[in-house]
């Protein structure tokens, strides 16, 4: 809950409010220290955000305000703009920090607690169930795919003096067949799982154990967190320097 709020707050911070972003970074680092996560783990994981940063790169060139200089690339004349650069830096930092918040959450919280939390946030039960199944069977599916690939590798021998491997079209066909067979296997498995659910009395509605009540400490922590975020947002818009 707090994590979603933090990400939202980060997204709402104005362009160029580096100081506010630094505050969030410090809070995050403190959080990961409390959780005894190596700081490197978060930083490394946050490279997931790299593609989003890449998307923001053109902004440096398409914004027109405050030109800083230009380069000629053949027919292209690219002009750096100060405004674009600031937007880019902000987007990069924001996405980086948002991913770090999400990572902090997933590293510190067991998956089933996250599912409980989603249920508590009134996400439809069927969606929560699907996410749960996905998480459970991703590993099983991965193992099955690995077995298929191992079987292919085991038979991908090359006779001496013959160029092995076959044409690209042939390889594509083999891969296609593998994907198809993986799909069929998954489909059959889903039928067996459904039979197993029916056998234990499932009749179309998911029921769940009662949830652990939210403790007062957690309410207080949530309150403090939301309050400080609001202060930070307000400060960033009103007092702190930004472009």
């Amino acid at each position, binding site marked *: 809950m707090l994590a979603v709020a933090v990400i939202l707050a980060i997204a709402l911070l104005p362009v160029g409010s580096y100081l506010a972003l630094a505050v969030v970074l410090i809070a995050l680092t403190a959080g990961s220290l409390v959780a005894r996560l190596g700081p490197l783990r978060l930083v490394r994981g946050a490279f997931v955000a790299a593609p989003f940063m890449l998307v923001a790169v053109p902004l440096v060139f398409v914004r027109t305000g405050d030109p800083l200089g230009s380069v000629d690339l053949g027919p292209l004349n690219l002009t750096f703009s100060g405004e674009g650069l600031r937007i880019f830096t902000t987007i990069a930092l924001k996405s980086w920090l948002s991913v770090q918040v999400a990572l902090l959450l997933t590293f510190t919280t*067991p998956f*089933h607690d996250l599912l409980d939390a989603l249920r508590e946030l009134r996400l439809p039960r069927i969606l929560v169930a699907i996410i749960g*199944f996905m998480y*459970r069977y991703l590993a*099983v599916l991965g193992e099955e795919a690995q077995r298929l690939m191992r079987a292919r590798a085991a038979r991908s021998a090359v006779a001496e003096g013959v160029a092995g491997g076959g044409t690209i079209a042939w390889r594509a066909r083999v891969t296609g067949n593998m994907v198809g067979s993986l799909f069929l296997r998954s489909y059959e498995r889903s039928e067996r799982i459904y*039979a*197993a659910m029916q*056998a234990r*009395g499932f009749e179309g509605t998911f029921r769940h154990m009662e949830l652990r009540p939210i403790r007062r400490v957690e309410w207080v922590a949530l309150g403090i967190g939301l309050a400080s975020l609001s202060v930070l947002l307000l400060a960033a818009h009103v007092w702190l320097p930004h472009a």
Partner: protein
Amino acid sequence: MIDAIARGAVEIQHLHYAYPDGFEALKGVDLRIGGGEKVALVGPNGAGKSTLLLHLNGINRPGHGTVTIGGMAVEGANVRRIRAEVGLVFQDPDDQLFSPTVLDDVAFGPLHMGVSHDEIHRRVEHALDAVGMAGFERRLPSHLSIGQRKRVALATVLSMDPSVLVFDEPSAGLDPRGRRQLIELLKGLTQTVVVATHDMRLVAEVLPRTVIMDGGVVVADGPSAEILADDALLERHGLERP
């Protein structure tokens, strides 16, 4: 109400079943199993063993014939109660364990039967204790060994407090230690037990009665000691001596 004598008794009469594609898997099965009996169901692949097992709690419905559990016919409104009476343990524990945690999975049956939450917690604890997996409640099924997963799979039906336990290939894929633990577990069960298996040593050790199926019918039924000693009979149906 299920009376005490009939509890756990299984009666199958003239059972026929054809799959939607027309393949006739069962061609008139007759079988009576008394409450508390331990029976092996053996026979070559494709003999109809798994198909028969799926009839015992109404996943498959008979084309012709009847199946009764503890005096209740497996049909219509009875099916819900029969699913609580008959615990089906599937061959692949990854099919049986579909919940995020062991606790959720063992609680699934009683939860969907409408048992109260206090009672569920008691049953989960009891079931995990019975299979030697107490303390694994918060673990993820994918983080368990295959032997542990099989035992949790058994706990998921024990928590429903069934009178009949049905196993499909329980010893497949187990290492010797896992197999030993399974055998001890099976020996300790007081419910009616039906085990479909190719593991003839398991049969000899745990199950006093053997039923051979082949081609969709029961071809032999008797004390395991006699059947497992009849080389000619075993060979006719693609089986081997333990």
